[in-house]
């Protein structure tokens, strides 16, 4: 009976060991197969997704990825189930193996026989002690060598330098200045009235369609031609040129950009945060200068393929320089929003845009105490979180050849479909809000270049052809209209309670922003004009085709 039990135990030992090896081998194979072509590691999946980024509208490709994704998911989860069940089976087999093997071992155990081990000698202990000391010393040597090996590959961090304390940009200082295109929130509003008395006039050293920006007593301007790109600082009190700094990019673009003469090389307005001033040019050069004119960083962000030349102005939020890159055609995957670190120029985030080329500028507006980066492109109005570039909402409704920038007025985003619709959107939605958050749309025609301005319940729309319309912000209903009979590229600005508009011929029109149109005051500048004015206190700064003007007192 005992012999039979011994035989059974032996057979069980062998059988369970064989089972363990077989299942173990199977699990290893299963694991290896999963590594090669798993859901996370599938090269084919990655390649197809990369292709989809280039061809986002390829439905056949989407179907292929879906099918592959489903297949990989099924395969992965089947493998996981197999691994789990296999492991349980192995534990069961291990229990059988141990029980049977112990039984066999106990049955075979013989009484120890010290005589067979031979006599013990004092030398043995002495020798063991000696070798043990060598072993312990060797271990210390190995540990020291390991520490040495690890220590010569230390953590690599930048050299410790005294941290540069840079106070974060506050809303208060942002609002005290005219730091970006159309002012702090791109609304085109300056609260202090300005006297139309010219204080000074100086020559703008290089051509440019961009507008001036102001921080304290520093006025910044960008200018460029085919040969050079520069940023200028003027003294706001005297008009004196404080410095003129060239943009020096480590890797310049291969050739000059294709652009329209009306747009030029320096159409986008710079932006400043009081620490540095940032400028972008038609060839993709972006640069930052400190207030002493020293270039802090500069880089080329690539060819800006745009039908008329790149014109979107810069804006920023905290330490992110925000660039709307609407390039190429809708659906070709070339457009994106790009955020650079204002201190280094490195990418912080970029978000692809489903839009084609446009010339509108992005704005940052506070919606329910949270910042939104609001942009217009063809065909969407898109809002992002300026911190991380996550899309917040979008609404369909715009079209190509888009130049006017959006504004936030009475908690509504006003966007213009060129020569067609004016669209008002409640900016508190998520995802596609086309059907849910459009407050109103009018089809009476929208400006083609100038951006709108609004005060109280009145929205003012100035078309490129010179028609000024006043509408109700809440409904879009037209209250009155007046035709100036001149062409305008410059956006209207509300100065105190006066609307200031400057025609392409360089005639400044100033009229009261009231319920009814009142005859406008006219002031000829004496030269062509296309940019938008900048303000600080009771002064207004205009960049004409050749000169920079200061009005006020």
């Amino acid at each position, binding site marked *: 009976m005992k012999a039979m039990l011994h035989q059974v135990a032996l057979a069980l030992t062998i059988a369970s060991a064989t089972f363990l090896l077989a299942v173990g081998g199977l699990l290893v194979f299963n694991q290896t197969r999963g590594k090669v072509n798993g859901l996370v590691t599938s090269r084919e999946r990655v390649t197809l997704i990369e292709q989809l980024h280039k061809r986002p509208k390829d439905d056949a490709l989407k179907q292929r990825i879906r099918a592959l994704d489903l297949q990989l998911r099924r395969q992965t989860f089947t493998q996981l189930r197999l691994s789990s069940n296999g492991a349980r089976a192995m534990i069961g087999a291990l229990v059988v193996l141990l029980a049977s093997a112990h039984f066999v*071992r106990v049955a075979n155990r013989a009484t120890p026989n010290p005589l067979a081990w031979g006599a013990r000698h004092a030398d043995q202990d002495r020798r063991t002690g000696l*070798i043990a000391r060598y072993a312990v010393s060797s*271990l*210390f040597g190995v*540990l020291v060598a390991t520490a040495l090996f690890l220590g010569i590959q230390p953590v690599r961090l930048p050299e410790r330098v005294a941290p540069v304390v840079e106070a974060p940009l506050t809303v208060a200082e942002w609002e005290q200045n005219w730091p970006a295109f159309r002012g702090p929130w791109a609304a085109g509003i300056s609260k202090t009235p300005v006297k139309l008395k010219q204080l000074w006039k100086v020559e703008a050293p290089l051509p440019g369609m961009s507008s001036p920006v102001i921080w304290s007593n520093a006025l910044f301007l960008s200018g460029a031609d085919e040969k050079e790109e520069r940023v200028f600082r003027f003294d706001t009190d005297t008009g004196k040129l404080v410095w003129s700094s060239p943009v020096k990019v480590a890797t310049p673009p291969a050739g000059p950009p294709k652009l329209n003469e009306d747009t030029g090389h320096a159409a986008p307005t710079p932006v400043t945060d009081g620490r540095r001033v940032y400028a972008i040019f038609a060839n993709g050069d972006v640069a930052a200068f400190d207030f002493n004119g020293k270039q802090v960083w500069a880089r080329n962000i690539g060819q800006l393929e745009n039908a008329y030349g790149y014109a979107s102005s810069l804006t920023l939020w905290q330490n992110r320089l925000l660039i709307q890159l609407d390039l190429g055609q809708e659906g070709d995957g070339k457009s994106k929003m790009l955020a650079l670190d204002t201190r280094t120029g490195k990418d912080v*985030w970029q978000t692809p845009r489903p839009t084609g080329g446009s010339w509108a500028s992005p704005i940052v507006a506070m919606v329910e105490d949270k910042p939104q980066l609001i942009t217009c492109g063809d065909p969407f109005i898109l809002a992002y979180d300026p911190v991380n570039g996550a899309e917040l909402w979008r609404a369909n409704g715009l079209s190509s050849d888009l130049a006017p920038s959006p504004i936030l007025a009475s908690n509504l985003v006003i966007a213009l479909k060129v020569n067609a619709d004016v669209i008002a959107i409640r900016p508190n939605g998520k995802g596609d809000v086309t059907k849910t958050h459009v407050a109103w749309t009018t089809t009476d025609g929208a400006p083609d270049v100038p951006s709108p301005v609004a005060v109280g319940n009145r929205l003012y729309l100035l078309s490129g052809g010179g028609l000024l319309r006043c509408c109700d912000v809440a409904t879009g209903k037209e209250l009155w209209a007046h035709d100036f009979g001149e062409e305008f590229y410059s956006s209207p600005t509300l100065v105190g309670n006066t609307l200031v508009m400057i025609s392409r011929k360089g005639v400044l029109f100033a009229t009261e922003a009231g319920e009814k149109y009142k005859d406008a005051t006219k002031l000829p500048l004496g030269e062509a004009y296309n940019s938008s004015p900048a303000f600080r206190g009771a002064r207004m700064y205009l960049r004409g085709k050749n000169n920079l003007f200061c009005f006020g007192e």
Partner: protein
Amino acid sequence: MFFAAQRFPPPQFTETKHQLPVMTEPAVRSLGLERLDIAVLVVVLVLAAWLALRLRSRRGLVWLGIFSVVYFGFWRKGCICSIGSIQNIAQGIFDSNYAVPVTALAFGLLPLAAALLFGRVFCSAVCPHGALQDLVLLKPVKVPEWLEHGLRLLAYVYLGLAVVFAATGGGYIICQYDPFITIFRLSGSALMVSLGIGLLVLGVFVGRPYCRFLCPYGALLGMFSTLSKWRVRIAPENCTQCRLCEQSCPFNSINKASVDAPATEHAIATDKRRLAIFILLLPVLVGVGVWFGGFAGKNFARKHRVVNLAERVHLEETGAVKDTTDASAAFRATGEPLEKLFADADAVRRRFVVAGRWCGVWVGLVIGLKLISLAIRRKRTDYEADQSRCVACARCFRYCPEELKRLGLPVPEVPPQS
């Protein structure tokens, strides 16, 4: 949060309106169950002590070990375990923002208290790691004693490193590299599964390889058990030096009776000189440990997630790498200034250097004291269990003819003394 990631990529097509399941976290073990765990630990510790010291029952310890493997291992998924609890306690001491959970404290301190009273009864049948290795030991092979002396020091080094990493926020390396947790949880990385299975296969021939050569808690228990009030005895009363137990311990934990040999004056003088040299060497070893510990600490810091992230971001900033990782991209999206990240990382790195030096002190002391201990000649009259090494497995009891007599079992013929 920079370091969180989906285990599987979610479907990317939003138009399919696939509802992603809500992200869940493993449920916290209820307070009642945690108290039950502590109660079970106390009961099993007392039982192990009673079985090893009083009843002297190998069979009882085997069944208790099986219970511990099932309860503390497979059912509790091996967590919190006493071995890992060292780290909780170390972090609790050095990090004022961290409160050590009561369970971790109990699992860390109760076995140590038991060791002070009864020796390493925790290792015998309470620790699931030890019990599991004990169960798979089928064909014991003797590790040469000189090698045993060296390898056992690895556990002390591991203990020092574990405290360094836990105290500096570098992570719980004992848990990260726990070879048996993957077996208890039936899942884990391929590397750790392989390590666990490899150690179990090794454990078929080499008794308790993890307990003897790696377990940092075993090193602690060994130190505590040298002070134990009651301890395992091979012979119930008097040792007859029959040598029958000499080969019975698969863990090299039996100290043999000394072989009587007249020591010459020259030999005694040599021994004294050697001992003096090793005593003088101790501060030198500590000094070397301090220097090299601090040196290695600069590398250890890489295990800290802030340092790791900062290093990655620095590589990206200097253009050494072109792409970004999920963590670096997530960090950049927060808008936190780089300078702050680098300053934080630098502070952590300096902390690691200091901790590395203390680890070096520890290693130098361990090595130095071991050398001193090996240079001391001891005289033993009986075969006895080594107080520090013995895991109270009770294998040796049945080899002792005195024990067989006590149990009223037939005694095999005892060979004459050598």
